[in-house]
């Protein structure tokens, strides 16, 4: 087990290196001069050049990148150009709470919706339950999240007036208010993923229900719930752990759009703002943090997977 964990961690390191190099290079190639952005349109070429020299922008690419790595290791992501007097790290930290809550809530929504419906659908294979669930699921997969969000806002906030239109209340105002604000966004974000999970759960269940050990369990006279839960479901859930890890990526990306729909002041909206204001250090920082978080989550998922399934641990993959 220990060797397995070490192997996974070692495999994640080159990925992280390539990820951060990509992020650096991508924004290094950006047209437009950060010094010009800082000083504004009235700056003289001499002053711009002076600032470029001071910021190290005149150095060659690899020097700049090494310096960037050096700072990165100290947790220094540079200074934001558009958020007043904030380092990139501070600006992101201030906006992290709603995004993290939204993603976790959305994941919960998708699991609560997806896994049970997938099981029900698999058990009723070919019958009307299955047909209905699978049709709703493919609708859910095809539904653009932002359109779903706009519809929810129209029904629950504009017409019925039971939920707030948009915005966000921090946890410091009490978790109840926060949930009231996040319930629509979480459903918006989680539903498509829930539909995907339902399809996956269904196929995993069908796979395990056809296995010999399930037939053996039936043959020795176990009742249906016991066969389904103890034998089929437990084995079907193992691959689902991986799917949950992959879901995080989709949800973190989708959070950007959902935050925009519901005006939630999270990291996603910060990213859109930063792009609009050409605040490249901030864009760089956000993209990097999200990508690194995703690598870490998948590392964690791989390790959990190894704990759950000894076959994976021993394979050389």
């Amino acid at each position, binding site marked *: 087990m220990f060797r397995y964990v070490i192997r996974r961690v070692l495999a994640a390191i*080159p*990925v*992280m290196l*390539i*990820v951060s190099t*990509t*992020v650096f290079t*991508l*924004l290094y*190639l*950006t*047209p437009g001069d950060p010094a010009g952005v800082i000083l504004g349109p009235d700056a003289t070429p001499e002053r711009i050049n002076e600032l470029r020299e001071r910021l190290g922008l005149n150095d060659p690419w690899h020097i700049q990148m090494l310096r960037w790595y050096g700072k990165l290791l100290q947790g220094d992501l540079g200074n934001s150009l558009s958020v007043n007097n904030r380092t990139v790290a501070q600006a992101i930290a201030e906006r992290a709470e709603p995004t993290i809550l939204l993603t976790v809530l959305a994941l919960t929504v998708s699991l609560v919706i997806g896994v049970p419906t997938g099981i029900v659908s698999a058990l009723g*294979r*070919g019958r009307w339950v*299955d*047909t209905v669930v*699978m049709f709703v699921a*493919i*609708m859910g*997969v*095809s539904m*653009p*999240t*932002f*359109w779903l969000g*706009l*519809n929810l*806002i*129209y029904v629950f906030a*504009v017409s019925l007036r039971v939920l707030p239109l948009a915005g966000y209340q921090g946890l410091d105002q009490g978790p109840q208010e926060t949930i009231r604000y996040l319930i629509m966004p979480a459903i918006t974000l989680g539903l498509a993923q829930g539909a995907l999970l339902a*399809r*996956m759960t*269904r*196929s*995993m269940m*069908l*796979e395990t229900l056809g296995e010999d050990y399930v037939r053996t369990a039936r043959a020795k006279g176990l009742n249906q719930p016991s066969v389904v839960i103890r034998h089929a479901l437990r084995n079907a859930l193992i691959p689902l752990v*991986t*799917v949950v890890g992959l879901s995080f*990526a*989709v949800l973190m*990306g989708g959070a*950007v*759009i959902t935050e*925009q*729909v519901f005006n939630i002041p999270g990291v996603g909206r910060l990213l*859109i703002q*930063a*792009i*609009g204001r050409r605040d*490249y250090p901030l*864009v760089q920082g956000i*993209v990097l943090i*999200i*990508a690194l978080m*995703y690598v870490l989550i*998948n590392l964690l998922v791989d390790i959990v997977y190894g704990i759950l399934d000894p076959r*994976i641990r021993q*394979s050389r*993959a």
Partner: protein
Amino acid sequence: MAQIQTQSQTQTQAQASAALPGALPTTAGRIRRKQTFFDRFVRHRSAVLGALVLLFVVLVALLTPILVNHDPTLAVPQSRFARPLSEATAPATGTYILGTDNLGRDVYSRVVKGSQVSLLVGLGVSLSVVIAGTCIGMLAGFFKRLDNVLMRVMDSMMAFPGVILALAIMSVRGPSVGNVILALSIVDTPRFARVVRSVVLTLRELQYVEAAHALGVTNLRIMLRHILPNCLSPMIVQATFVFAAAVLGEAGLSFLGVGTPPEIPSWGQMLGDARNFLAQAPWTMVAPGAALMVTVLGLNLLGDGIRDLLDPRLRRQG
């Protein structure tokens, strides 16, 4: 490990739709003539439905000049927020079938026109993903030396959530349709390459490939003549899903205001505009959203259907 993930994922996706209602076209037990792909396709209800939807959208995009009754980009300030089915006030003429938006532009004509960008991006992205993904996947699957390097790079590209990577690329390149195609192609290529690679890995070990090697056939010829044709089924299926993802991706980027530039009507951008006037003019969000959803649904149904039909394992099970 990652490879196992993708393989099991594609498999499970295949099985997920195996028992869709329309996916059971066989008449088990009865003697039947050998069915062509077309025979089976026509009996597959959801595949036919998906194909019809796609055909409809393509027709709308091609016939846009005939179908629109207003200039999709013309802002008429005096007819802002006209309700659906209201008559235009002079000097403008014609009925606003689906109403007008916040600038007085005709929603119906914009939705019709918007189909063009969606299909253009979908087509552009799926073509470039198929070309790039096939090259990378074949090289990685065929040459063991390249495999590790190429797949590490693909892994790191997949380490970015798709939307985030696309946003980062768009922020560097600026809004334009070409850049949307570029960004979404970069996002979708790794997954496609992985699928191709996994198929090539299994094909490489087969005896007829070995035989070809023994006969001194060149690597390039083996790849093109013996391996590529056998990769086609999964490639077609994946390409359909890439198309669907690209249509959604374009809409998402345009919704965020960094995709298609404002002067070209697109569904995502219309929804972005509609968001700000939801209470005053809810009709501005209905049509573009519905058009988007129906298009993506059609593509997904088609993809599911083709997968059921092309997968020999599923075919035998019936």
